[in-house]
């Protein structure tokens, strides 16, 4: 089967710096795939290689079984949108429609899809950041693509615009369009993606459904002596299973060990203020997989 996206050992090196490291990425037909990673992880470089804008150092790329550069049925918005400032939004799209051989009537449709129909005649240079971003998405939709590659499409949008964009992406997915969505916004990915690939330092470190990535539950502990409690718990269940979370600790441990843990802490003279089982969120998984600190991601 010709997958919408299929890469094998995809690598990009800039001198000594390894931007993308043997990436094996597959996107299935009709799914919304979240490409998740912190800034500088190699997401955009990977997407540029998919589209033939950047040549891989090694490895292969196939979109619908075709080599990069053959973008029939593929629409994309990569990083910030780029348009001609002296043209209106509508004229920008009409020029792009000439390149792709798209019917100019489609321009009005895509402007309406991104809620820019009433500003289409205005010069692009007068657009706000959010409007520019929406025009970028409109350009990506121009060819009525079977595969839509969106790199941080909600950048610059206000909360309402972000919500609208998520609705649009979900609707496109429901209509059968395959979407590859790159983002560093965990909530966004969690809300709309069927499957997620987590990239860190150029490598795909995990690829699964959001539910499976989140996996099981964690045991959350709150105590007035959290530093001493952390040291003890790390010794008992292993440091890799203990993570600071707010003012408490998240422990990757079976829920039935909660009473044992409570008893041991109390025996050590540590009063436990709160102890409950909770589901892991994607952010936690992300931090575990990438080793990033919380401040790096939204």
């Amino acid at each position, binding site marked *: 089967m010709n997958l919408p996206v299929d890469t094998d050992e995809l690598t990009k090196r800039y001198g000594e710096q390894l931007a993308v490291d043997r990436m094996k990425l597959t996107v299935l037909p009709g799914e919304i795939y979240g490409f998740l990673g912190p800034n500088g992880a190699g997401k955009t470089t990977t997407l540029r290689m998919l589209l033939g804008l950047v*040549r891989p150092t090694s490895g292969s790329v196939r979109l619908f079984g075709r080599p990069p550069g053959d973008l029939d049925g593929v629409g994309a918005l990569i990083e*910030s*949108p*780029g348009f001609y400032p002296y043209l209106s939004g509508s004229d920008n799209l009409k020029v792009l429609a*000439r390149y792709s051989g798209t019917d100019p009537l489609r321009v009005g449709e895509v402007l309406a899809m991104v809620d820019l129909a009433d500003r289409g005649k205005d010069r692009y240079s007068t657009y706000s950041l959010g409007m520019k971003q929406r025009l970028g998405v409109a350009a990506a939709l121009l060819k009525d693509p079977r595969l839509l590659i969106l790199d941080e499409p909600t950048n610059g949008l206000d909360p309402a615009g972000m919500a609208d964009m998520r609705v649009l992406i979900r609707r496109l997915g429901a209509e059968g369009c395959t979407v590859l969505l790159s983002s560093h916004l965990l909530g966004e990915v969690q809300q709309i993606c069927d499957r997620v690939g987590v990239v860190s330092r150029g490598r795909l470190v995990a690829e699964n459904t959001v539910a499976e990535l989140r996996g099981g539950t964690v045991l959350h502990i709150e105590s007035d002596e959290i530093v001493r409690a952390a040291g003890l718990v790390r010794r008992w269940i292993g440091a890799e299973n203990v993570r600071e979370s707010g003012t408490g600790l998240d422990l990757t441990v079976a829920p039935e060990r909660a009473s044992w843990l409570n008893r041991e802490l109390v025996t050590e003279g540590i009063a436990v203020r709160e102890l409950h089982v909770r589901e892991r969120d994607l952010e936690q998984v992300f931090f575990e997989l990438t080793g990033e600190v919380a401040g790096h991601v939204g």
Partner: protein
Amino acid sequence: MWGSCTAELAKLVRRPANWFMLGIAIVLGLTFTYLLPLAGAAGSSSGAPGTDRGLAATLPSNLVGNAIGGLPVFLGAILLVLGVLAVGTEYGWSTWKTVLTQGPSRLTVYSGKLFALAVASLTVVVASFATGAVTSALIASSEGEPMNWPSFGSLLTGIGAGWLIAMTWATLGAALAIAMRGVALPIGLGLVWLLVVQNLLFGVAAPLVDWVGTLQLALPGANAGSLAASLGASGATPGVGELVSASQATLVVAGYLVVFAGLGGWLLRRRDVL
């Protein structure tokens, strides 16, 4: 392919800066070719270039030489800027990725740009002929001089030669923009080459140093100047002088056009679009 050509043409036509440059080219051409000689004939002794050419130089019989005389240097500079803008702003505005993700190959887009530049170059040359024709007809009628127009064949040859020179400079601009991925540096370096280095070689160094004189015979400016001179452009115009035969000049200028176009396409195809 045709889609890329019409897209590039649409961008070129709708860009106000291009019309501004066409206006500048026409005003410069008319000033140096007609206004200064007329001022000289009327008794002005400012010493500005062209004031000593006399009234006869402005009459319709000299239309071909007058229309293409500016192309080796100052009109060439405007066409170089036009070429840089057509390609270089795609880097500045980050529009290469937007265009290329619509599907056309890099060479298809590049070919479309060269097509649009060819149309722009022809427009500048034809505008130069048209405004020159009107101006010289007005001068002839006001001075009671005969209107001896060049033959149709001479006009076609002149337009063709002018188009070749104009396209070569525009393509040099495009190639420089791709090589330097922008606008400012290619325009700066291109103009320094066209207006300073070439003129120094042509006017100062070549008469004094033998090998410089030989070297300049292989450069595009000297050959463009020779081609213009062979069709009647005044030797008093900067950059114009019959240094090589018309056929050799044509071949060398055409060769540079091919080299500039090929170099730009090769670089664009080879490099990553960042």
